[in-house]
């Protein structure tokens, strides 16, 4: 751990992030932070810029301006490979598994940047403990799994990189309500094991219930922030995102 994070400053610190797709501006100066051990959620409507934010943090998009500091070191504009190695990993929206690889191979892909065979084997066992369904299906092709199993595999794959901060983009999207519950309880478990989490969700209620803190993103700007409880009780959030 670096000095800056032990001094209590943020584990992940994002300042004034600006991102555009061609001429279309997606983020207009987003600032947020995540402390070690926290679950922080980013909620907002479709197209507000939630996915753009995490994709930029993960290094697959380049910001026009702004600064990202992770664990005391600047990662702004660094390639995805370098960011994963530093311990910041994104499980992308829509799962994005490798459909013609087996469950086992998808998990190995998560550990792509690692060379510690024993550690990888141990983490594989952990993933199978967390998701027993995946163990039963370890030789099956990922493309043939059900939606819920695919989401479990996407999370398991991201965990294989041994992230210190895990970003999850819409992990509950398109899942049956019972599975949504399961996914959120797994997110809590992962966090209890010491991994910080930045969670992007459209399911604002569930996300705010599980998160320590949250940010509300509207058309590329952070418009509100607070603890999960505060946001759940906020009149604006209730009206716009909780359907009350």
């Amino acid at each position: 751990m670096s000095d800056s994070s032990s001094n209590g400053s943020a584990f992940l610190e994002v300042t004034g992030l600006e991102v555009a797709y061609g001429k279309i501006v997606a983020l207009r100066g987003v600032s947020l932070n995540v402390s070690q051990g926290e679950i922080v959620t980013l909620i907002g409507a479709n197209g507000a810029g939630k996915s753009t934010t995490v994709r930029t943090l993960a290094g697959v998009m380049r910001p026009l301006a702004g600064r990202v500091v992770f664990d005391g070191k600047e990662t702004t504009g660094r390639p995805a490979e370098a960011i994963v190695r530093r311990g910041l990993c994104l499980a992308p929206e829509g799962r994005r598994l490798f459909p013609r690889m087996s469950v086992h191979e998808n998990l190995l892909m998560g550990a792509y940047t690692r060379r510690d065979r024993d550690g990888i084997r141990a983490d594989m066992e952990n993933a199978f403990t967390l998701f027993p369904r995946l163990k039963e299906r370890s030789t099956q092709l990922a493309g043939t799994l059900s939606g819920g199993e695919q989401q479990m595999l996407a999370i398991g794959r991201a965990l294989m990189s041994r992230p210190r901060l895990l970003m999850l983009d819409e992990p509950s999207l398109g899942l049956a309500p019972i599975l949504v519950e399961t996914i959120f309880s797994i997110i809590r478990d992962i966090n209890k094991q010491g991994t910080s989490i930045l969670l992007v969700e459209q399911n604002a209620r569930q996300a705010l219930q599980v998160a320590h803190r949250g940010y509300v993103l509207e058309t590329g700007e952070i418009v509100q922030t607070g603890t999960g409880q505060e946001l759940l009780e906020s009149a604006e959030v209730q009206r716009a995102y909780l359907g009350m």
Partner: protein
Amino acid sequence: MQRCLDLLTSGLTPEGILQQLINGVTLGSVYALIALGYSMVYGVLELINFAHGDVFMIGTFVVLGVTGQFGLTGTSSLALVIPVLLLAMIAAMALCAVLGFTIEKVAYRPLRRAPRLAPLISAIGVSFFLEAWIATYVSSRDHTLPNLLAGDIPLYADVTIRYVQVLMLVSSVVMMVGLQQLVRRTSLGRGMRAVAQDREAAELMGVNMDRVISFTFIIGSALAGVAAVLWMLNYSTNQTIGFIAGLKAFTAAVIGGIGNIPGAMLGGFLLGLAESLGAAYISNASCGIFSSAYEDVFAFAFLILMLVFRPSGIMRERVSQRA
């Protein structure tokens, strides 16, 4: 009419067919090795590397150079021929690998974000450059190796398989099995398949795109180097060989399902068979209208039929099966 029927059946003996099958499979094994290079590059980049055939052509000239250096003749002893051929293979693999790596760096990498037509034109440019370079500075004549490893093994009746054909088949199968292991079992091979299936997801897992692409070009080009040695054991070369052999191998890749590694192998063998059976029997089958000179026509008629009726190839990539 009766004359035609007689002609048709008279040529069709079991021995004759078996002999053509053997010839077809050996020719096909070389097509397959070259086809792998097209297919692997297409898999990771969705680029048709039209310079690949010319990498193979350069390989054939490396083989000529090495064997010439040691003064191989048809009467050289096995103790000289085998080590020299091995050396020629290593040299061709190494030089082709360096060439493929360089072509990607110089001609394709700067165009990675350009419209898709740009790298295609760049590939054709590289192809012309290599052909012109060989014609100008090396040779523009036909070259063959002396008849090395003369002799054959009788198989059935008067059907034989020549030593060089055995060598071609064994070497290409060894290379294909090796490639399959590399792609299936190693981390870099897994990274290659990941890029082919979902580029952004692969990047998110920490796959270094540039490294995977370079690796793909190196492997594909080295296989073209192996193909060059095998080709020279049985056929001749000149500076334009890359165009025709490359086009055939590309056809094989499309037949098998471009981007698919086992497909490229299957496509190579099928094309070799179609060509040698077609060349042997079309004259009789068509009552003498077509002759065996139409050999290349069959190869490309096969390509056209494939593109019309099953454009995704025999072993089609199931693109719909997205996760």
